[in-house]
């Protein structure tokens, strides 16, 4: 049975660490990927507002996914930071390979590589493995998700 308190605390912590790693990579100039900004521009074109909405959305998604991770651990019958890290790695790979590939199709403000920008679609698309945002982007994304999963796995060990 999933313990809501543990999953909530673990979700907040894991999402915080993921955000920290990805934001640090932006600040250090390693990658320009910004999941809050990409999410927020779905709802608003204004940079400040987009960041606010995107950050909130990103945090909520982080918590919901934490619940999903706990569900997986429960179905699995085992947990632990190693299993969590493996799950996080899979999650990160999915985001990079599938998520980034389909994002331009449904993001209302993302430009298409083939058709160029339009007055409503001007946001730079991520490209394969989000490499458009810098060569270190896949590495940063994988590491951040690995840590996310590992933290959730470590917390889940106590309840599964």
């Amino acid at each position: 049975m999933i313990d809501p308190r543990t999953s909530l605390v673990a979700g907040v912590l894991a999402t915080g660490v993921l955000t920290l790693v990805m934001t640090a990579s932006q600040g250090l100039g390693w990658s320009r990927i910004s999941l809050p900004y990409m999410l927020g521009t779905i709802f608003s074109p204004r940079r400040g507002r987009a960041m606010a909405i995107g950050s909130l959305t990103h945090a909520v998604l982080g918590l919901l996914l934490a619940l999903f991770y706990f569900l997986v651990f429960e179905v699995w019958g085992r947990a632990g930071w190693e299993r969590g890290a493996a799950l996080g790695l899979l999650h990160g790979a999915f985001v990079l390979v599938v998520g980034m590939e389909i994002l331009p199709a449904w993001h209302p403000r993302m430009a298409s590589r083939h058709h160029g920008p339009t007055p409503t679609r001007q946001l730079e698309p991520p490209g394969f493995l989000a490499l458009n945002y810098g060569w270190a982007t896949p590495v940063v994304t994988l590491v951040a998700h690995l840590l996310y999963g590992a933290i959730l796995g470590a917390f889940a060990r106590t309840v599964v």
Partner: protein
Amino acid sequence: MAWSDGGRGVTDAWTQRGSADAPAPPAAADAAEPCPKIGDHALIGDCGSAALISRWGSVDWMCLPRFDSPSLFAAILDPERGGRFRIAPTHESHVWRRYVEGSAVLETVFRTESGVLRLRDCMVAAPDRCEAGALWPEHQLLREVRCIEGRVEVEVVCEPRFDYGRRRIRPEVREALGVFYAHRGHLVIVRSEIPVEVEDGSVRGRCWLEAEDRRFVLLAYDQGEPAVIPPLGQYAADNLEATLAYWRDWSARCDYQGPHREQVERSAITLKLMTFAASGAVVAAPTTSLPERIGGVRNWDYRFCWLRDACFTLRALFELGYTEEGTAFFSWLLHTTHHSHARLRVLYDVFGGTTRGEREIDFLAGHRGSRPVRVGNAADDQLQLDLYGELVAAAFEYVRRGGTLGRFAARLLIRIGDRVCGLWQRPDRGIWEVRSGDRRHTHSVAMCWVALDRLLAMDRDGDLVLSARRRTRFERTAHRIRDAIEASGYSRRLKSYVGVFDGDSVDASLLLLALYGYVEPDAPRFRSTWERIRAELGHGALLMRYAHDVHGRDDGLPPGEGAFGVCSFWAAEYLARAGRLAEAETIFEALCRHANDVGLYGEELDLQDGTPLGNFPQAFTHVGLVGAALAIAEARGKRPESGLAGHAARQQSGHMPDAEAADDLHTEKPAAGTEEENAS
């Protein structure tokens, strides 16, 4: 204005210009120079960064994301290595250019044998469109090229070189999105309606344009996040129109209606271009290391904010009707100086932070071989006493125009007064930031007097409250300062104030003694000082800041520099305030003729041909132009008085040291109150 914004044939316009007051088109075709002169450039910007564009359509200087960031284009400092962004006809052409009226949109017209091409350049500034919900890149340089007549082959060359040309980045072509240059989280996107390809790291392309053909080329910059890629076509045209509208609205707010309005408006726009909108700071110039003498070593980085320029800049903004900008600038001043606890530094960055020292970039050749190229400014940690007077005088100008000081601002100013009382006897580097050591500069000491004088005036007006003890201390110190200046800063032998205490040469900064109200402009002591300044430092209408070869004056650097732009305008302002209007106008008009073809001034002017030298354009020179124009307008009776001089505080804090000096300092007898106070 001879030109309409569009539609009119170039030939007609040219004919009109030839017959009017504007210069005729050049007789011979202009071949693009490998390294254009300083004055061959015009400035565009978006109040965050700026670009210099040569008359041959080349962006030769641009730093991103802000004024003091490393350069992306630096061909002005090294045509080989610096990088440029050029759009121009492939054939030889006559060039004529201007700013579109009331705007910072530059228009360059190339007339070739086969046709006429018009290039419009701007950095997009369209807050309304941004507010209306469009995605917006951090910076956007937009270039519209249009064939007006005949057919012209046009070429595009874009060579971004990050970090002052240190980095040559291999670009990535992303199909319809454009060409992408990425470097450590910074991203530059080049998009073009002229077919281009990447060659050796540069974007190059050329095509023939027929009459009325129009193409857009743009460069967008973003950092840290997924970039915004602006479309071209009608969207770009709308951005250009919105930028024009923004600048026209802004310049329409200029409420100056006196003589030389065109020059004053251009100076206001230039000042706005050098304003960092996010903080309200005004940089001294958007460039570094443009030499004060071609081939010389006097090459400094001016992409910072000097406190020295504060008072005049504030007055210029307020007097021209730009209250919002003036208030933002004053807030920046307070915010910045608050952090340093009344220990003022000479210069700050646009966010009020301290700069990171000075270093030389040895791989750049320098403008026309003028090395070294410097980044950062070593004047940062000098002691310059005049700053204290400048800051307090700026606060005084602010409250005089209806502003109010908060508690913390008042406390800061009072602390500055305390500091002045402790420091005024110390030698310093002075207004010219000499590198030859500290001396007691008359101007610096006089500005200490100005600081105390304005504080006492604000106390009297109720803008701040001084304790009785402090008031007495300030008054006594002001008296002692005046005594010292009249004893050691004035030479009875020369019948003139002198640049340094007990010295025997003058300095153009002495003009500020009259402009700040230390002495009446037409007082005998100052009239003779002006005569001496003109004799020692004057070159026609131009004025040197000091003479290098007079009496062994040494500023720690090899001699050789031009006339100082702002000093020349101070002379015009001084003459207007002294009631010598005809002389003031003669000098002012002569100085106007030394502006470059689009009305911009550098820090200095070449003594031989009057062309600009030093960093370009220079905010302080344009502030000087505005000050002189205001003084002339006031002398003509077309404006109420706005001068920094002539308020009651002087009578309180400046008793006369002796009878002779008193006679020489005033055209009228001192007020009775002053005499009583002196007696007491």
